[in-house]
């Protein structure tokens, strides 16, 4: 019966996606409907409107093959070969450097603030 539960929960996830996409289209929001669906599901779980047990198996199953779903898109580079033989190759070091800046900023900010609030707790 586990397979039935997973299939039903996948349909629920798809339902959240459809609602998210409907809201996106209705309000003309500049963000993907899937993110709105994500926010709806997360809120429903936090507010205990929707119990975790009714979505856990399906979500875990779906996420265990996450990388499969974007392979069709990455195969799309087949149409962009010429870009990387020219100036476009410079996009790669840009991404590398920007990624390192992102990591440094995120890691430094979170560690710095965590240490500071820990020090404050010790003082008080």
């Amino acid at each position: 019966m586990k397979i039935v539960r997973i299939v039903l929960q996948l349909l629920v996830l798809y339902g959240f996606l459809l609602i998210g996409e409907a809201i996106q289209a209705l309000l003309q929001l500049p963000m993907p409907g899937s993110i709105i669906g994500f926010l709806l599901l997360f809120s429903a779980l936090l507010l205990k409107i929707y119990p975790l047990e009714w979505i856990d198996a399906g979500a875990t199953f779906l996420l265990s093959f996450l990388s499969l779903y974007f392979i069709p898109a990455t195969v799309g580079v087949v149409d962009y070969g010429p870009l990387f033989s020219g100036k476009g190759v410079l996009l790669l070091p840009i991404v590398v450097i920007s990624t390192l800046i992102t990591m440094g900023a995120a890691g430094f900010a979170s560690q710095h603030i965590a240490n500071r609030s820990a020090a404050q707790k010790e003082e008080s």
Partner: protein
Amino acid sequence: MMAFTPAALIFSVLTVTAYVIANFIYLRFRKTPLNPVITATVALVAILVLFDIPYATYMEGGDWVAAFLGPAVVALAVPLYKHRELLQKNLVPIAAGIFAGVIAGLVSGTLFTRWLGFTEELILTVLPKSLTTPVAMQVASTIGGIPSLAAVFVMVAGFTGILLGPYLLHLLNIDSPIGRGIGLGASAHGLGTAKAFEYGPEDASMSSVAMTLSAVLGALLSPLAAWLLL
């Protein structure tokens, strides 16, 4: 949009088969460059080039596989919910790290590409590179970038995190589970989270939380960044 054609059947089965074999190879050797997304993509691209199959024909089947992306993004709410206690206990440092990372990533990516004179379409394609692939692709298509190229840059960002991340973290004295986890997850998404596992379970949880929150914040701020910086 989704067709029931012979091509749809052939190429969806081919994609899943390539993924299963790629995963098998990865689990057998466990080497980072053998990441299943990379090996499966290379194999499929080779098949398309070899047999002169247009990408549009391949996508008749590819669309069936890609249809799971949207529900998978929604499903990310479940692991985030499971980490809610960790999130509550460290709300301020996590929020600070996510904001700093997302803004640094959006601004630096946009400015560098603009300074080098790339077209607006390419700037908007580089913009969401730090977000997890499904979100990055959807953000790219929402703001006017190229989703499949965006996915490539997301991979480059992920490998940067895995290969150079440990040196940078060491250099900046980022040595706590929260600092390392948030740094890796905010910049290198799922691949960074896999790396964070090597530091320990707490790093991995932090990284997974950072990956999801960065994706949400990045999706919210990308249109704004595009509007402000272009």
